[in-house]
């Protein structure tokens, strides 16, 4: 434990303590800000009743499906567009047109096309993830040192071999950047899509609590989203360490 660690712990503990004391002393209306302990208590109750785990599972189901479809498509299209000129030419105008649109703005359209159930939510998430992963993958392919491609050719690699053995690993660091950004986007979009047309999920739980002015449950939703964000970041960092050991060692 370094001095830096201690300062970080002191920062969190100090703020939580001040918060608890101020609310308990009646300086802040608990309707706006419940105490940390009260939030923790609610979280425990909702976990025991199964309400919270159920909501998390419903949201995770959408997030994981959307993330997996979106990132697979993004990596594949990004590698092809980065490596083959005419694929890039075909994709480029669409990326330029769709990338700047907030993907939440597409959700109403997807509800019209795919119905009010899970598919429209998953598609919204997948599209949001796809563009982030696609753009970063393409950047990664373009960033590969062209001499490496020449060396591979000189050593006798065919074009498919160069694709698998040089372009894919060469772009991997940027692919992971795209995946991290995509995971953040997936959590944003799952919340937005769960405000409407569902009776399950963390976003639904949070939004319903807000409409009932149940601030404690709103906080439970916010904290749980935060925990999910931390967990996905850790998971992706671990995956990057395992698949890209040459980067880990340079740090």
């Amino acid at each position, binding site marked *: 434990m370094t001095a830096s660690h201690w300062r970080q712990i002191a920062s969190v503990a100090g703020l939580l303590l001040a918060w608890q004391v101020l609310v308990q002393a009646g300086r802040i209306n608990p309707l706006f800000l419940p105490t940390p302990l009260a939030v923790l208590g609610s979280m425990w109750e909702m976990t025991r009743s199964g309400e919270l785990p159920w909501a998390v599972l419903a949201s995770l189901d959408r997030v994981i499906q959307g993330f997996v479809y979106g990132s697979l498509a993004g990596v594949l299209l990004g590698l092809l567009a980065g490596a083959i000129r005419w694929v890039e030419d075909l994709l480029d105008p669409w990326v330029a047109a769709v990338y700047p649109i907030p993907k939440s703005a597409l959700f109403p359209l997807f509800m019209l096309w795919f119905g009010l159930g899970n598919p429209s939510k998953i598609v919204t998430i997948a599209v949001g993830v796809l563009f982030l992963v696609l753009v970063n993958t393409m950047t990664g392919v373009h960033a590969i*040192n062209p001499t490496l491609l020449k*060396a591979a050719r*000189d050593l*006798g690699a*065919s074009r498919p071999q160069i694709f698998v*053995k040089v372009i894919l*690993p060469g772009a*991997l660091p940027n692919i992971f950047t795209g995946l991290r950004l995509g995971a953040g986007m997936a959590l944003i979009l799952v919340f937005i899509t769960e405000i409407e047309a569902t009776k399950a999920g963390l976003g639904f739980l949070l939004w319903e609590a807000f409409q009932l002015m149940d601030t404690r449950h709103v906080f439970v939703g916010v904290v749980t989203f935060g925990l999910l964000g931390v967990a996905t970041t850790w998971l992706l960092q671990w995956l990057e360490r395992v698949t890209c050991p*040459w980067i880990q060692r340079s740090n």
Partner: protein
Amino acid sequence: MLLALRDIGKAWHIARTGERVSALEAITLDVTPGEFLILLGPSGCGKSTLLQIMAGLEPPSAGAIDFPAAAGGRGKLTSMVFQDYALFPWRTVLANVAFGPEVRGVPRREREEHARRLIDLVNLRGAEHRYPHELSGGMRQRVALARALANDPQILLFDEPLAALDSQTRRVMQDELLRIWAETGKTFVYVTHSLQEAVLLGTRIVLMTAGPGRIKRVEEVTLPRPRHLTGRAEAAMLDRLDALLGEEVKRAMAS
């Protein structure tokens, strides 16, 4: 004759200005088995381009390249050692060296055994499982050399392989290159702009003119080895080449 260049020319089109820039003109040259052939010239004389043409990585705009059918096809004739090493950062030393045999479909055990023998040859035993960024510049160039040898080419093409190294490491690597050239009996074609390197290493020096690159003179180097830059015969040769190269450097700067 291993490889014959017949009247090779190379020109680039610069799209922005519509200009046609001639990089190489009328290069006719035979590479003979077992020689240490030096391509010497000022920067920008097209000597690296000529090497790329020999490697088949760049098509010539004019002329023809011949190689005997007995060489077993274009793919096995040459291997290139690049100036900036061009090692795959995500592959260990062993996997870098085994890349050529791997893409040619040699089974894993066989190609790794082969790679280990070459890693021994370039004195890198013990570094098999390191990644390129964990190696010094000199070690990286040894890996690049072992990787190029792994396909068992008849000709090794070197594109200023020692230019990025400090002078001490360069001296050591020059001796290493001579040792490996003698041990393997391969033909080396070696691009450099360093006179000293040319005189220390070569059995034949092709001096090129400033752009467009043409062959200005071909010198046989019969000096005994080991050679020393301070030796009398070496110094005389250096002086002679220095005068010739100096003309070309001036021409390059004037144009």
